[in-house]
């Protein structure tokens, strides 16, 4: 594995003949160290990384045809390589925790290291030859692949609202979140225990279920809900209401109907009593002075009736 990368580095030197590339391996090793800190499993994927490396040797030969100031520098290539690696890590993590949704709990590490890589690329640190990787990697073509990949993951992360479950530095879950998860686990284990008898389940697990609901509504008020919690709550509620059928039943049909019909009956009484007892309002008529009025008006009336 190491041989491959070393080989690549040699080739780079040969082809580019630039002493600047010396900084490349240093950079890479630093990054690798960081990666190993935050996310140890990334080493498992190293063979793939090596394959990627191979892929770009062939492209490298193509790139050799361009004048050197138009193409990307060695260390940018390295950055690209790391970006790809982190991207793959994050996506595989997301997919593996898609159902039931545990995206935030499992992948916040992968996400933050992916974010870090991206910000490394975009940060405006000038290379020695006065060119930044941001220029060459981000703004060189209309496809803007890196940006699109990044923003698509960003959208997913945003709509999952994971940030509201994580600590400010994105290094761990909030206490409230952990609390909720443990409470949910206890509810589920209670469900498991009384699975056979639904009516018993409804009475026995009610306390823990109510507590879970309360926790949830508290979290909702604080605005610290993420998709993990919402989904867990949904699943639990569905189990409770649909599978075990523990919702409240309409048991007070008679009193409700009685009170409603009494209320509806009141206006009937009101109008009837008014109709029978209230005296009609009378109006006085005034008769205007009219010239020849009788004759002509009768005339008109005859005409029309």
């Amino acid at each position: 594995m190491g041989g491959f990368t070393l080989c690549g580095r040699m080739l780079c030197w040969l082809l580019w003949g630039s002493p600047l590339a010396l900084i490349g391996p240093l950079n890479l090793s630093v990054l690798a160290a960081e990666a190993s800190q935050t996310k140890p499993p990334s080493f498992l994927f190293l063979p793939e990384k090596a394959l990627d490396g191979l892929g770009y040797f062939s492209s490298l030969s193509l790139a050799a045809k361009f004048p050197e100031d138009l193409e990307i520098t060695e260390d940018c290539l390295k950055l690209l390589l790391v970006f790809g690696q982190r991207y793959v890590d994050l996506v595989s993590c997301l997919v593996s925790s898609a159902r039931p949704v545990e995206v935030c709990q499992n992948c916040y590490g992968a996400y933050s290291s992916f974010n870090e890589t991206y910000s490394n690329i975009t940060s405006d640190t000038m290379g020695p030859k006065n060119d930044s990787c941001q220029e060459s990697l981000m703004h060189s073509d209309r496809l803007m692949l890196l940006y699109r990949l990044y923003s698509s993951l960003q959208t997913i992360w945003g709509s999952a609202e994971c940030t509201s479950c994580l600590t400010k530095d994105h290094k761990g879950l909030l206490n409230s979140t952990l609390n909720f998860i443990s409470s949910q686990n206890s509810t589920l284990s209670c469900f498991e225990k009384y699975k056979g008898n639904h009516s018993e389940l409804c009475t026995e697990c009610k306390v823990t279920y109510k507590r879970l609901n309360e926790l949830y509504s508290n979290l909702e008020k604080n605005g610290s809900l993420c998709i993990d919690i919402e989904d867990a709550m949904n699943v639990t509620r569905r189990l409770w209401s649909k599978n075990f059928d523990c919702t409240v039943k309409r048991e007070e049909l008679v009193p409700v109907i009685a009170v409603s019909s009494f209320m509806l009956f009141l206006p009937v009484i009101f109008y009837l009593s008014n109709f029978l007892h209230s005296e009609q309002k009378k109006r006085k008529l005034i008769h205007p002075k009219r010239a020849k009025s009788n004759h002509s008006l009768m005339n008109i009336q005859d005409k029309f009736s």
Partner: protein
Amino acid sequence: MANITKKVSWSGRGEEGTPLLNGSEEVKYTRQLSGGGMFHIGRLSTVDLDEDITPEEDAVRSKPKEIPHNEKLLSLKYESLDYDNIENHLFLEEERRMGHMSFRCLEISRWVICGLIGVLTGLIACFIDIVVEKLAGVKYVVVKKSIDKNTEIGGMCISLILWAALNSAFVMVGAIIVAFFEPIAAGSGIPQIKCYLNGVKVPRVVRLKTLMVKVCGVICSVAGGLAVGKEGPMIHSGAVVAAGVSQGRSTSLKKDFKIFEYFRRDTEKRDFVSAGAAAGVSAAFGAPVGGVLFSLEEGASFWNQLLTWRIFFASMISTFTLNFVLSIYHKKTGELSSPGLINFGSFDLKSVKYNIYEIPLFIVMGAIGGLLGALFNVLNYWLTIFRIRYVHRPCLQVMEAMLVAAVTATVSFAMIYFSNDCQPLETQKSSEDYSLQGFCADGEYSAMATAFFNTPERSVRSLFHSPAGTYKLETLGCFTLVYFFLACWTYGLTVSAGVFIPSLLIGAAWGRLFGIMLPYIALNPSVFTDPGKYALMGAAAQLGGIVRMTLSLTVILVEATGNVTYGLPIMLVLMTAKIVGDYFIEVSEVLHSSPSYREVMSSPVTCFNRVEKVGTIVDVLSNTSTNHNGFPVIIQTAASEEPGKLCGLILRSQLIVLLKHKVFVERARSRLRQRKLQLKDFRDAYPRFPPIQSIHVSQDERECMMDLTEFMNPTPYTVPQDTSLPRVFKLFRALGLRHLVVVDDDNRVIGLVTRKDLARYHLGKHGLEELHLAHT
């Protein structure tokens, strides 16, 4: 005299049936529905309308009759406004005195007043909006808590009673202040304002007290959960504000700021009131152009460009003020995106586009709207007649309103209780609405509750914008049916409230129902995916069917949706609704025909001589049975049998001011240095001229003489005696006249036609009908 062939039709302007917006007032003043009990002239019945009594001619006619109230009565309460400037000597003198500069100042102060009207109207709208939101919020939170608790532990009846009691309590407050303090503030006030703009003064309609009662009443009735809206009363409020501001004083508060004195007469005041009405519409719907068109359509018959521009200014300022204050209230200062009280939400063209093949569907919906609107009006009409006859004591009216509120709560509760339509909860939504879970599974809410357990505006918005599948068929069906009858029952109660929102809500409900059913009957179901636009069209159709407005309503709705491309379908829908509705009941179409107006005019006329004895004047003015308002002034010729030659017209109000200041010929002689009466004295008395009874005239003074020359209008409008009735109508409508003197070839007074005389005649289904004047 016999050819009654020519029919003149005119749309409901002037005296004739303004659209049925508020049953009770409307019916008192005009009549629309010519079905039912016809009341022919010479067929007076004593008790019941349908009971035929053979004509008894003059004997019966001469003494006052008492009959039950019916729609063919014209109340004497209602006075006309004098739009015609009284061009007497005083007036001309003042006009001459005023220089170029003072005309400039007047013009500027007109603009200032319009700006003030806009600002104040906007502020009132904000106040209503915020207070309603707070009160309703508190109520719904309390009821929701109780329901949530009682669903679990039992005792739903308690929640039901709590809800009903809260509703009744709010409505009781609203009804008491209306019924006991200011009955004119009942209803939306739109008919009264229309009357005012058309030259009919309903007493106390533009007073400060009315405004207060109106605002508080609206808040109470909307917070009380009645099927009413707060938009209609805004128009009235705007008009009151305008009438108050333009006068520069408040007679109720006894405070005179000594400004804007020039505007203290009917003509000027009317212009400002129309600006106020426009500002009210604009604040209510966020529709400045619609407001201007409303004023144009309903009001001013004489219209000039400058006035239109000023009115537009007032509306814009009003909607801007509302916007700005609400943005501060919602903590988004400076974001001007909530223009009206009712916010339809944005209808984005991308999400809700329509296609040409949907136009026929929209027209069908318009027809349905017209039908339902006609049904609504008929039901409401019968209810109103019943109310006027049997439920006329204030305490009964308050009780009725409370009952309606309690029943509204009960019915809503029952609907929610028995509904099985559950929808999954969305997290963002739950914070804004007061969603109820009821007996739904956890994590779901009852769809019926979003429709019933909400202020009407929010329900409308939810019907417009909720994604497809939010409501089930049966939910919407029940809702439409129940809400239709509730709204119909509520409308005409003694609370101040409008009919716009309930109409929109009924329409939106059946429109959405229509939209949901379409995919089932269509060949290609995927075409009709979004029921939101059908809800909008249904709302437009229903509103058009009930209020029968055309141009202004189209513009108001287009502006409220914020999407000009909906103009065509909304116009078509409203057109169809109006045509269909009018086919079933004529609301506004009134036919007039007669070969001559001779039958209409009063004759002989009560006239005054140019120099008249004070005693005669006092006697004529205090005769309650006649209660005339304008008197021709004549020069008596030698032959006293003949009617004298006309030389002017004088109004009751002027005579009263003259009597009050004791402007008698004898006095002028004895005290030469007495101050000359000026136009200012007339203006100070405006608009509440004291009644004649309050003016004391001693026995000596009765013998004095009064010279009317200087004060009368020397050039009144006259017509020759052979003019046809339609022609007289044209004159009245075009000039906004109040009195029209009929003269013969020698300029001798033969008769006098007044607005009221004309108002009393209309051609119903059974021929020419006469309305009876009644004391109230």
